[in-house]
């Protein structure tokens, strides 16, 4: 058979029946993901409803400050126009069906289509977060595996300290520190996502390059504590695997060094690591809005902040939280499928 057992699954899946079984598994997972999203949407939507004051009041109150007089009848008319007089479940259902089509209605205050408002911003945020996740694991995988295998006390203790520092120093403090040093030593702040000339420009290669030039800092800052977490996960899982009998048994068969490390414990620790990716993304999303605020980025995180802090725009806030959660659910779905492909134990339980 194959060396890494990665080609094997595809050989095994070659059978028609197996393919069908696997498709059924994927479908079940997809349904579960959708159910999770529906549940989340219910939670988010309920929260947005519990908020004192609805969208109509908010909009008109805003107009009121602009000088035009508002009557109670105006609010009622606005409610009817927005469909807020319909029962809760109906509104939730229509919000949900819109959300799955990518249509989140209009913002309460700005009166712009939310999908348009978010557009690129959401995707840029997502790519920045995925970038930091990738960075985190690119560092954590080799370092974690090697440190778990090494008996060097100094290396292990310093790694432990670094990862604790990563846990204890929240990203926004790190961002502040970076700002502090960059202003002291370079006299400039490394903020924003685009140079001024590209901010409003349509997408082009030059704009993309400009984005990359600016994006490394948020990616690094967001990746910082993600790396610390990932390092801990990888190390703990690896230490567990290395202590297992099958590793000793493999050593007793004459396998040693890197071959032993990567083929045995590392390969078997991979499953749980893949499993934890979704929660790592969750953690990064947690840090995003605040880091965005400090670095004055203009993406979804800061838009969320703006929506909440300045204008209590529940429609926009709900849409952003829903989208962030949807990204996590999608990643979880992808890792479930990946796990089934790489881990024969999961795969065989599906193909039964």
């Amino acid at each position, binding site marked *: 058979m194959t060396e890494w057992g990665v080609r094997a699954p595809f050989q095994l899946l070659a059978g028609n029946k197996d393919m069908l079984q696997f498709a059924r598994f994927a479908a079940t997972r997809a349904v579960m993901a959708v159910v*999770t999203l529906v549940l989340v949407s219910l939670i988010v939507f309920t929260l947005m409803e519990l908020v004192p004051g609805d969208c109509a009041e908010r909009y008109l109150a805003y107009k009121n400050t602009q000088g035009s007089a508002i009557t109670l009848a105006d609010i009622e008319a606005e409610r009817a126009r927005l469909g807020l007089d319909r029962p809760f479940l109906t509104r939730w259902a229509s919000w949900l069906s819109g959300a799955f089509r990518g249509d989140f209605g209009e913002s309460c205050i700005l009166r712009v289509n939310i999908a348009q408002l978010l557009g690129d911003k959401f995707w840029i945020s997502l790519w920045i977060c995925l970038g930091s996740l990738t960075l985190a694991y690119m560092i954590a995988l080799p370092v974690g595996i090697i440190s778990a295998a090494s008996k060097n006390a100094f290396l292990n203790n310093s790694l*432990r300290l670094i990862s604790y520092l990563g*846990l204890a120093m929240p990203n926004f403090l790190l961002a502040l520190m970076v700002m*502090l040093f960059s202003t002291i030593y370079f006299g400039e702040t490394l903020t924003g996502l685009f140079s001024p000339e590209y901010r409003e420009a349509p997408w082009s290669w030059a704009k993309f390059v400009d984005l990359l030039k600016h994006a490394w800092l948020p990616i690094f800052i967001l990746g910082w504590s993600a790396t610390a977490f990932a390092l801990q996960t990888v190390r703990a899982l690896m230490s567990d695997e290395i202590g297992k009998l099958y590793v000793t048994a493999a050593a007793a068969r004459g396998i040693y060094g890197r071959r032993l490390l990567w083929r045995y414990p590392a390969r078997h620790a991979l499953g749980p690591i893949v499993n934890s990716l979704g929660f790592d993304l*969750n953690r990064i999303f947690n840090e995003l*809005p605040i880091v965005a605020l400090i670095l004055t980025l203009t993406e979804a995180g800061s838009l969320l902040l703006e929506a909440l802090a300045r204008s209590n725009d529940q429609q926009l806030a709900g849409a952003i939280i829903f989208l962030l959660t949807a990204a996590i659910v999608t990643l979880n779905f992808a890792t479930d499928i990946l796990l089934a492909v790489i881990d024969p134990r999961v795969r065989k339980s599906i193909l039964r």
Partner: protein
Amino acid sequence: MSAKTSTKIDDQKAKEAYFTASQRQLIWARFKKQRAAMIAATVLVVLILSGLFAPFLSPYDPTVAGRDKDYLNGAPQIPKFCDKNGCSIRPFLHTVTRERSLATNFRWVEKINEDERRYMQFFVSGDSYKLFGFIPGNIHLFGMDQGYVHLFGTDSAGKDIFSRTLHAVWTSLQVGTLGVVISFVLALIIGGVAGYYGGAIDSVIQMITDAVRTVPSIPLFMAIAAFIPPEWSAETRFFVITLILGLVGWPTLARRVRTHLLTERNQEYVLAAQLCGAPAGHVIRRHLLPSFTSYIIVDLVISFPYVVLSETALSFIGLGLKDPVNSLGVMLQNVTKADVLLNYHWYFIPVLFFIALVMAFVFVGDGLRDAADPYSETRK
């Protein structure tokens, strides 16, 4: 057998003590062996004590009431023992006069009068306070015979950063404890129900828990906190924010409670106890609970810093606690301004305290986890 020496009897006693030690004693014995965790525990105790006795330890009231209006955005002042006029046993400060005018380009310029000494006093009476919220007092550990002392400098309103930091540590401890307790009670109920009943109820609860867990918590905090009416008082705000932190934090804990319950319930020692005729209440109280209280305590210690960090983050963006409540987040609100970044670096001193606090908790939690796990030593 008869010829046992006294050391052997001592040995025997030590062994007996080891074998009959309670779980708590065993955990403590193992915990003591970990140097890093012990250092962290010491730091933690010091921080908790300084938070508890913040009103006494800090020289001034941390709110606007205790401000030094002649020393806004003032640099830290370190008391000294010697100057060109000789040394003194009592630490002292020099008198500083500050001026800001057109001549100085509207920046504060300080003039130090090296001949005028202000001496430090101990156990002075000053701003009145309520220790632990109810013991009134006005004695402070230290103060000056005249003027003010600001170990960590002052902020833009002239509030003493040292005093604020100590009070903020106390706030964080309160928020953390309350938040953890709230989410723990929720977790115990929800996870307990899921773990106890199992089956369909368990599946449904698990599904909901997982769904809640998927939602990124800080954006969710922000969404909820943003809608707290601004006219609420600082104290109400404090409780509501803590409540929110607790309400959003339960799923992870609930999951762990459930897992503990499910695995422990099926352990053979539970069956053994049942076969011995122990009633359900006895099994739960004497066997199930002790089997995982240590793990739950560890979970609580580990989740503590996340509550503290969430509060800090929320307050930092202005959605959490507000003045006059002191918390790190509140204190850091203004530091992104270029002015602060360039000129007033002492604004960042409290950050060190918080890193120390969080790290101490993480290390202690880790040490406790290792100590509570009887197999941790074999792994290492």
